[in-house]
């Protein structure tokens, strides 16, 4: 746990001066940010821009979860890593880049695969969670863990030229299971390895995730609660969709949940919690 601050030091005031003069942030918002812990799950295409902009903005603590190591084929979109970091743990590489930009931020790398035994323990130490993962099983796991731990989940995803963004479990809004009670058939799920992705698309979505987290942390209204942003980078269209509210039938976030602890998500989804299994995919 971070020791709570109540004011900013002179070096902080000078560093953050350009955002301190924004009335929507101000000293109060900056102090709130510096007392906020944010967990980013996935230090890849979405996690890299989200992490660096949250570090730049001055959050107190940034947790970075990734079990993977940097590969050359990541560098077209995972901009916190570099050629000299190939084979280095992604969480360590990203944490180092964030610390180099802003040493006021406490960066905590977690070199592990988030699973049903470790998720709650980690998540409960943070105020806001960012879903920057790349597979369905981990998305259900993160959703359920955020419901059980009572944390808002800023969820982003990207594929090809498209991106999506929503905030789950915030101020009475829906959760991932409210929208998707059943997992998609594994043969309909396309990951970035198979479907491809233009690197800057997760760059845009990850940056938007950072912005939503900053707005939540500073007491501003968040824009995508019970709303979904659909972005098509090829057409240059941004569409905001009104989503259903929290569902009374939801197995995890309703008043009478049937799921009260984390389950086996790979079994539930019939798919591995990784984007690396090259199963036959179509969509």
């Amino acid at each position, binding site marked *: 746990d971070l020791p709570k601050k109540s004011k900013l030091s002179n070096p902080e005031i000078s560093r953050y001066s350009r955002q301190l003069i924004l009335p929507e942030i101000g000293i109060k918002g900056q102090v709130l940010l510096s007392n906020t812990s944010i967990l980013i799950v996935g230090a890849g*295409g979405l996690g890299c821009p989200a992490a660096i902009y949250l570090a730049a903005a001055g959050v107190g603590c940034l947790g970075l979860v990734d079990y993977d190591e940097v590969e050359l084929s990541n560098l077209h979109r995972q901009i916190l890593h570099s050629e000299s970091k190939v084979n280095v743990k992604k969480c360590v590489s990203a944490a180092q880049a964030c610390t180099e930009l802003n040493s006021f931020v406490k960066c905590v790398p977690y070199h592990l695969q988030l699973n049903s035994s470790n998720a709650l323990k980690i998540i409960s130490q943070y105020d806001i969670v960012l879903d920057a993962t790349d*597979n369905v099983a981990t998305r259900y796991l993160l959703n359920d863990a955020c419901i059980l731990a009572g944390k808002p989940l800023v969820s*982003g995803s990207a594929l090809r030229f498209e*991106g999506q963004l929503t905030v789950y479990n915030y101020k009475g809004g829906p959760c991932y299971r409210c929208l998707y009670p059943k997992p998609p058939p594994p043969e309909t799920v396309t990951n970035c390895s198979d479907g491809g992705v233009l690197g800057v698309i997760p760059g845009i979505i990850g940056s938007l995730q950072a912005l939503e987290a900053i707005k939540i942390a500073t007491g501003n209204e968040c824009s995508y609660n019970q709303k979904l942003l659909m972005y098509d980078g090829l057409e240059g269209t941004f*569409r905001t969709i009104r989503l259903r509210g929290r569902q009374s039938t939801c197995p995890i976030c309703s008043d009478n949940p049937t799921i009260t602890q984390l389950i086996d998500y790979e079994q539930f989804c019939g798919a591995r919690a990784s984007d690396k299994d090259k199963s036959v995919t179509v*969509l």
Partner: protein
Amino acid sequence: MYFSGGAELLFDKKKKHDVNLPAKETPWTIKDLLPWMKDNMLKERPELFIQGETVRPGILVLINDADWELMGELDYSIQNKDKIVFISTLHGG
């Protein structure tokens, strides 16, 4: 009609489709629309789009930029010029 997130790959890889539904005595609902799409628009592997009488898990239906759950889901009566969107949820990062 508009497809995105990969759902367009089942529909000639075209995102935008202008569709004229044939005249019918009772109003067209989404419940009627889905089998009609299966017969008239889907060329192959319909199970990747429709399962039973509804869309497969992982596809979100939007009616005029609102989640179909807010509009009555399968029972929604389609109006002239309605914009119906089928999006496949993305999971990559």
